[in-house]
């Protein structure tokens, strides 16, 4: 009898225990301002790579800035394509940016100033890749063929290779079909897949492709390269605190002077960042004028 009562009690307890955990719904709450002392700044990189790779290569540089600048927090901002980057840059949405030289020149008209640039200008040139089995040997072999570029506004990877074609007897507006495929890697892959006869890019993406896809890269060859120009610029919007811009410029331009900095630069890969100013990009303005006049007109940005 006692055992029975114990079992009954246990059953009732279990039943009641199972019924007693009704809980309230939860809703997150929001505020307009973050309760943190740090000021947030965006640091946008033009679509040198797809966002994941961009984050992998440039994320540590931004982390480095965050560690060495108190009271400011930089967030790396990628863009899915050149158009998106251009739109944000020219709308003044970005605090700091690393545009290509063409975009650098254009940004000056939208409230930005140059405070530095990537080094290794000798690497800032356009290159042409073809499949080894494509049969393309001279520039005119491209006539009537499709060629790929990352984007219309890419200086080294698009405009300079197009200028190269122009100076080697190809009218890029008539003799070839131009495909703007969105990114450096896409342009290279189009050549590898045989979708185009040749792909335009620039040395750094090509080096990375060789590292990451050596078997595919082995089926491609660098067939032509353009003359070098000035490398990508570092710009800051005019309303950024001068001390902050100076601090960023100092940290980036001295990266190559320490072991950690060199390791970070090796990921990009460049040997250094350098100080620069708006006048540094006059050569680009000159090239663009020539390009617009002789190759294809550039839309005003």
């Amino acid at each position, binding site marked *: *009898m006692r055992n*029975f009562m114990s*079992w*009954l009690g246990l*059953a*009732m307890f*279990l*039943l009641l225990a*199972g019924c007693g*955990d*009704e*809980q*309230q*719904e*939860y*809703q*997150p*709450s*929001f*505020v*307009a*301002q*973050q*309760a*943190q002392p740090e000021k*947030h700044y*965006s640091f946008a990189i033009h679509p040198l790579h*797809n*966002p*994941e*790779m*961009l*984050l*992998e290569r440039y*994320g540590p540089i931004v982390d480095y800035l965050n560690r060495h600048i108190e009271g400011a*927090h930089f*967030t*790396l*901002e*990628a*863009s*899915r394509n050149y158009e*998106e980057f251009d739109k944000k840059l020219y709308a003044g949405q970005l605090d700091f940016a690393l545009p290509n030289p063409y975009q650098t020149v254009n940004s000056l008209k939208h409230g930005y100033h140059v405070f530095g640039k990537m080094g290794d200008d000798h690497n800032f040139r356009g290159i042409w890749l073809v499949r080894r089995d494509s049969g393309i040997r001279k520039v005119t072999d491209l006539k009537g063929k499709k060629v790929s570029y990352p984007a219309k506004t890419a200086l080294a990877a698009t405009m300079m290779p197009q200028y190269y074609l122009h100076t080697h007897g190809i009218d890029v507006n008539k003799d070839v079909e131009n495909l703007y495929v969105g990114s450096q890697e896409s342009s290279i892959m189009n050549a590898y897949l045989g979708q185009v006869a040749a792909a335009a890019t620039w040395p750094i993406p090509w080096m990375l492709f060789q590292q990451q896809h050596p078997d595919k890269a082995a089926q491609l060859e660098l067939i032509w390269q353009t003359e070098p120009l000035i490398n990508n610029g570092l710009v800051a919007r005019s309303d950024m605190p001068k001390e902050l811009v100076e601090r960023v410029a100092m940290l980036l331009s001295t990266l190559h002077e320490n072991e950690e900095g060199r390791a970070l630069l090796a990921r990009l890969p460049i040997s250094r960042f350098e100080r620069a100013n708006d006048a540094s990009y006059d050569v680009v303005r000159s090239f663009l004028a020539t390009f617009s006049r002789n190759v294809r007109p550039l839309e005003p940005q």
Partner: protein
Amino acid sequence: MNLAPIRLLRHFWFASIRRQVTLSFAAVSVLVMLLFGYGILEQERDFLRKQSVDYAQGLAHTVAVSSASWVVANDVAGLQEVLASIGRSRSLRYALVLSSEGRVLASSQPENVGLYVNDALSRRLLDATASEPLVLLDNTAMIDVAEPVMLGNRQVGWVRIGFGRDEMAANLRKVERAGYLMMAVSIAATLLVALALSGRVTGRLQQLVDVANQIHAGRRDARAQVSGSDEVSALADNFNTMLNELEKSERGLAARGNALSRANTDLTRFAEISAHHLMEPSRRLSSYSQNLRERLDAIPELRRDNEVRNSIEYIERDAARLRNLVRDIQLYLAASEPRGAVCEEDANAVVAALERRLAQRLLEQGAAIECGALPPAVLDKPRLNDLFAVLVDNALIHARPLDPAQPLRIHIGGERGEGLSRYRVADNGPGIPAEYRERVFEMFERLTAGGEGGSGIGLSIARRIVESRHGRIWIEQAEQGGVAVVFELPDRESAE
């Protein structure tokens, strides 16, 4: 502690096998169904919980993977499109894409885009160091999961999905309702079966109980009529067989009892007649010896002859002894049967009357009777007189104080026991060793060569009277060192 409710409960429980069987079945079925139902419900609850967690985590993972490049690009419009792709479930409470700092990049409530989450749960999420899926909230009301937005091996934000569990609760309620219904049906069915089974079993057992009651009421021919071939019918058959055997045995016993009774009656009659016939010569013997003594007194030379005188004294003494013996035998024979109405008698009055009758003898022996207040005795008065008389007589004959200077004191006391009256007749004589205290109740047993005037069956008469009323009698050591004869007379006649 008040034990009455427990006793009541015990009585309620144990008073009926049918009740025990029915309630046991019902209780066990309720218990089993409760445990079973609870187990099923818990399993269902666990399953639905896990399912909702898996679903929420899967959805959060999908959104996180789809959002990664949009988060890095800070493309809130693109992220809003990603969120729109997950559809609008009725249970979805919120879906958020957060930057690592907690800024809302996209939300199922677009008005929150650009704001920062700041509640405790959200802050706990933002403070988390590990970039791994988290279950922030998992209760009966809702589930909230967070999935890190990873690009490569870098975390760039969080996706949070919150689902209400009202649908799960509704499902559980359905299961609960179904469970309760099944439980009720099952219990009802169990009760019906229990009632039918216990009714069949106990109904047939009740027949046996009825037969037993009839037998007890005197209907010796009553027999159980239980059909079937199960254990109860086998028990009924055995019960009937036993009753038949008992009846047969009872008839035999009655016949033997009657024969014994007749024999006893004959024997008693023979003894009474014998006593009567023995009494007559003893009286004549006394009478003739008296005449003889008177004649001898007239002849002086014979009166001085000691041999003649001693012979006459022996004849007179033996005649008296024979008369006493015959009288006590008559008393013994009559001791087992009432000689009047058995009712409550005043023992004090009986002892007082006895004291008056024995006044001369007490005076001669220098003895005294001390009597306390005695409780009433349930016995017919003649035998109550005999009982006290033989015990006092026994003391007067056998109890001689060791110190001749001390007078014999007979103390009669009594008290009430449970359903009986207890009496004690004690003296200050030499007492009886413990090993002989039972033996002296046998007829003609004497412990000493003396005891003149005693027949040797006084205590036997006392025992026969007491035991005829299912009482007890025994000997103890008296406080004053002598014998204490103790006897108990029950108020009601016991069957033991």
